[in-house]
């Protein structure tokens, strides 16, 4: 049996992954705002 035979797709977790990416984008945006404010 090879794991590749059943290579998973993003499936029902798609929203969770988008949430993590959105949270990361927000973090970077806040860090950039912080940089602009204090540099």
């Amino acid at each position: 049996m090879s794991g590749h035979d059943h290579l998973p797709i993003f499936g029902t977790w798609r929203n969770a992954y988008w949430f993590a990416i959105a949270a990361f984008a927000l973090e970077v945006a806040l860090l950039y705002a912080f940089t602009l404010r204090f540099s």
Partner: protein
Amino acid sequence: MNRTDYFVLFATILAIPLYGLWRTYGHPNLRQYLKGDHSIRWGTIGLSVLATQAGPITFLSMPGQAYESGIGFIQNYFGQPFALIVVCAIFVPIFQRMKVFTAYEYLGQRFDTKTRLLGSFLFLVQRGIAAGITIYAPAIILSALLGWDLNLTIWLAGGFVIAYTVSGGTKIVSITQRYQIMVILVGMAIAFGIAVHRLPADLSFGNALEIAGKMGKLHAVDFSIDPSRRYTIWSGILGGFFLSLSYFGADQSQVQRYLAGGSLRASRIGLLFNAIVKVPMQFLILLLGAMVFLFYQFEKPPMFFNQPTYQRAIERGYGPQLTALQSEFDDVFIRKRNSIQAMPKASAAESQALTAQVQELDAKARTIRDNTRKVLEQSGANPKSKDSDYVFITFVLNHLPHGIIGLLVAVIFCATMSATSAVLNALGSTTAIDIYRPLVRPKASDHHYVVATRWLTAAWGLVAIAVASFASLVENLIEAGNILGSVFYGSVLGLFLVAFFLPAVRGSAVFFAGVIAQTLVLLLFFTSNIGYLWYNVIGCGSVVIVAWIFQRTLFRNDRLLAPQT
């Protein structure tokens, strides 16, 4: 450190493992010993993954890094959320479905025994040495500053970890890491609060940030495409992604953390928790370093933080040179402090002139420190790590109240113990499952393998302590740890990427591609001076390309063979 500090230190570092021993008391079967049980939920997995990555170097070096170069280092973590999503989507479900104990066991099922052995061998070599450095790096700094015996410090950190990791296996590692990381986060938060509180009373937090920003310490995000810039958002996302994918996907010390408990959902939520909290956590640790920097603009810092090395140079007759540098440094400090104190009340035009003056004086102070280092090197006093590694612990020992000092030293020990226990657990498991079971005793009982894993975990602990005892031979320890990981990670990640994405490639092609790629990386390491982060890319890319070519040429007849299970 006084009695209160020692009480807090020992109470903290002993209570957590003792609680873990109480929670894991019993006779686990092999699955329980290597994967824990269903009581391990996503919160424990998430904190355990966080604790495994955040070793003692994180808490000793990161604030010092911000002190020296600002908080731009945060961008190195920008690739991690993407890597964790890939691990969640592809690696975790495959590992969980195949019910493997180790990542390399999967390579055996997908390819063959020799590829499994290659993956596990590369992991064991790299991590066995890295575990020694994880113990040694904080031990050398703490023993130097506190006057403790180095070997005793190594055994204090290492010996206790061996005992509880051997006893409780994966479950005790997960439980203790949960509380150790809580102690670490609380300790760092208290240090942050005190650093801000110890700033001059007439300086608001906002003003403090303004000054730190004007001194170039708060440049968190840099969109520059100039390749000479050390930290940019692009290098962070690309380089960080690659490094994180290798670390979370192919390093058993992390794989074992998120496979604990055996629930796909818990593993995924635990990893996504890390994708979200890692950047804010590192930001606060770096910001703490910026606050310590600001604190030392009002309180005179030592010219060289590694005081034992400085004293050795004086004893060797370099006192006059160092005294001259010290008086120059003191003069620069006073002028800089006066300018900084004038900044909050200055008009816009005055503020601009003061900022330029402060930046110039700061550059001067940096030059004096560089010259000091050169004198120390001439004297043969031989500092073993960067002076910035001593910044935060010097601040803790000299400026925090008693009790809190004990807590912060416990933070360093907790970080050492949590990172080391995860690595020893993974080294013991990999040796037992990927080498001992298939090659030495293929058909023994569950109980036999539990006992074997315990002995092998203990043996790896002794190897780590032996490496720590000889680590003084390495010039720059922390750099050595990073280089070591980069030299081996790329090839191992390549094996997994071929397994997932090149279904036509079989065992022999990928095995020989792995050997060639690792040899190539080692050759480059010894003969060239390219940046070590590139080894990851070269190792991984070589495995993928060479395996594909081999499968289509030398091993094309291997295609029809069924993979071994």
